């Protein structure tokens, strides 16, 4: 079996006194798409933030490409080839679409141009609006831009938080087809998605989180058509308050 690209080992995260993740271990191999599913407040976003270094775990460790990420800050982790698309469309409103994408790139120009072409192929709307300032994009287009930026910096691993949010159905299908294609070239994807249907359709592996704990994981095929995943998700506390 291929060596894991990303490995979280017994990661525990606290927000103040509140436990957000408890002893979570997740592994992502090159070329693999892993989907985190679970309720709001289950810890999906926290887990992604922990990988990119926006949240510090209180225990456990994270290995990426054979080295430990524990001592690296967010900027250094991104330089390692991790791209992160946060929830809620955090783009730079004053910059044009092209600038938004270019700032994510550190390295030689030829490779940058290739990545840009890749993003434009995935989201033609971004190419037609390349010189439009970010604030003028519609909500869904901003979402595309956030994913596109992650693609530019994520040479090895993409972290996508709710990538389907706000995308029209046709586009969503398109995005997932292309994410699969991108993964087939050896890049790995760790994504959080509220929508179990999309997660099952696109991911190779599924990790079910509930109240900060990993309650089930396995190949997506094993979950398809099973009631247990829905049960695992829905017996959580839908009204649980979210930390931070």
């Amino acid at each position: 079996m291929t060596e894991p690209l990303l490995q979280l080992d017994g990661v525990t995260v606290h927000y103040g006194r509140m436990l957000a993740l408890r002893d979570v271990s997740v592994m992502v191999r090159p070329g693999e798409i892993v989907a985190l599913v679970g309720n709001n407040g289950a810890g999906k976003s926290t887990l992604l933030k922990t990988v990119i270094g926006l949240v510090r775990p209180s225990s456990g460790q994270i290995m990426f490409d054979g080295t430990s990420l524990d001592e690296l800050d967010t900027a250094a982790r991104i330089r390692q080839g991790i791209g992160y698309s946060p929830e809620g469309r955090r783009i730079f409103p004053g910059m044009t679409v092209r600038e938004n994408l270019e700032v994510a790139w550190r390295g030689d120009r030829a490779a940058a141009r290739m990545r840009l072409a890749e993003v434009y192929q995935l989201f033609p709307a971004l190419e037609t609006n390349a010189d439009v300032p970010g604030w003028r994009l519609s909500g869904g287009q901003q979402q595309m831009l956030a994913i596109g930026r992650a693609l530019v910096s994520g040479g090895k691993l993409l972290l996508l938080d709710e990538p389907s949010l706000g995308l029209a159905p046709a586009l969503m299908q398109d995005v997932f087809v292309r994410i699969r294609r991108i993964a087939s070239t050896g890049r790995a994807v760790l994504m959080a998605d509220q929508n179990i249907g999309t997660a099952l359709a696109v991911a190779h592996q599924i990790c079910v989180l509930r109240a900060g704990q990993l309650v089930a994981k396995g190949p997506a095929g094993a979950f398809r058509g099973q009631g247990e995943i829905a049960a695992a998700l829905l017996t959580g506390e839908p009204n649980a308050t979210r930390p931070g």
Partner: protein
Amino acid sequence: MSRHVPTSRLMPLAGLACLVAWPLVFTSPYDLRVFTLVGIYAILVLGYQFIFGHAGALALTQGAFFGIAAYVTGILGARFGWSFPATFPLSIVVPVLVAVVVAVPVLRLESHYFALATLGIAQVALLIAIRWESVTGGANGLAGVPGIGAFGLVLPRGYPTLAFVWGIAGVCALVAWWLMRDIRGRAFQLMRTSELAAMSIGLDTARLRFSAFLLSAAFAGIAGALHAHTLRVVSPEVLEFHVMVTCLAMAVIGGRTRVIGAFFGAFLLVQLPEWFRFLEHYYLIAYGGALLAMIIVAPDGLAGLLDRIGARLGLKPRQTLPSPVPLPSAAPDNVATEVPLLSVSGLTKRFGGVTALENVSFQVDRGEIVGLIGPNGSGKTTLVNIVTGLTPADAGEVRLMGQDITHDPAFRIAQCGVARTFQLIELVDDMTCLENVAVARLTRLGTGSGRPKGSTKVDAPLDLAKRQAAHLLERLGMSDAAFEPAGNLAQGLRRRLEIARALALEPRLLLLDEPAAGLNEIEQQDLAFRLKDLRTSGLALIVIEHNVPFLMAIADRLVCLDAGRVIAAGNPSDVRADRNVIAAYFGAQPQDGLP
């Protein structure tokens, strides 16, 4: 309902008691003069809190208003021999008039431009004071300003003046507290956090800012007049920038929005130089260091620090949900039923060279749920923004129950009964759920027909707003979260809270921008159920949503936009089967098929 003094109130009260005890301990004439100055500065800062703290605008005019008032008192008193009863009101009126004049151009400016413009005004006032020697006495200023008094009697210095100044400071404090008490102040907090949300609940934000600016000027006028009377001299010093800086520092260190904070700030910043006097030349370093330390330790000011200590000690006021009162049932709108609730015709909007909307027309009837779909960037949100008045249309017309609202400002459209939610939720995260809804309800009660009748209670509208807000929370199944800060809620509840706030306007039309985004299947079902329930009361909904199964379950009609044009409209299943819609929106497999 039990009435008791919340323990968190006791902390500031204890602080106030210390302040009152101070002049009884330090009794030299100099100490008394310094303490009088504390009272004067407290009034100045109380005023500054309106524009700087509540309205959140960095105005640098407060020092100028203070100085102008001092000069009005000085000129009228020293040159013309007028006494307190005549000069005092005029010293308040003049800075307010200046504020009215400068507000028109200046209040439209944004943050740093606003600060710069207000700074310019202060500099002009200073120059006039120095150059207009025949009236102002030039650089030397005017001596012989009379003391506070009337009918030949003049208040002696020392305790009587001190008591008078502090008496007025007390009245000012009461007025400031009264104006901003409870959820009234929360309206300003909403405006600071999200101007969009404030307008969308019907708050006239321009007017709020304007009145805050005038109140600031009025309080500065009171402080300036008292300053001239106690010093008996007016010189250009009162217009210099350090007065403004001191006032700003007092507001930051005491607390920007709390009444007690103004007193803490004034006391500390007047006393600090006195306490550090023994350091002689080094006192400025110690002074600066102390201020920096304060800002680091208590970024919300001393008032905020006390609150935090109180919370740490568990001195949290007991919170009981006000007993819910239902909103009045919607009155029939007296408009012929042939007239549609909303009719949009020929709407066109361009951003630069990009056409966002092109000749869009459609109608919505009472009690109808219309789903708005279309590819990303097809103009759905722009359409909602135009209907709610946040974006002006280039051409076309929006009519609500026959009335043209195309060019009405957003807050007025909200008052007419058009409510909305936002794609990226716009709530005040540090306000509780109850407050978030009650602010909207109070705004509605202030403008609408729902004013409580025959109640003798002074705070009846406030009380009613909270109780009706409690009802709305109950209706959306979130009473348990009433006292939870909105920022602590999960996505599903935040969406529901935004809807509760929109319903507080008693809307006839509710526009929801991607309400199901980020909700899980259970939450979606719950939301669908609640939306259908709303329709039964005659409310019409326009729902933008990419989650088509969710939309199919609730919508009576679908409208599909593509590149700013309506490409299909009508029965949901027809629109869904439409070839153009499939090509533009659903893609090859219109079912929920994924790769």
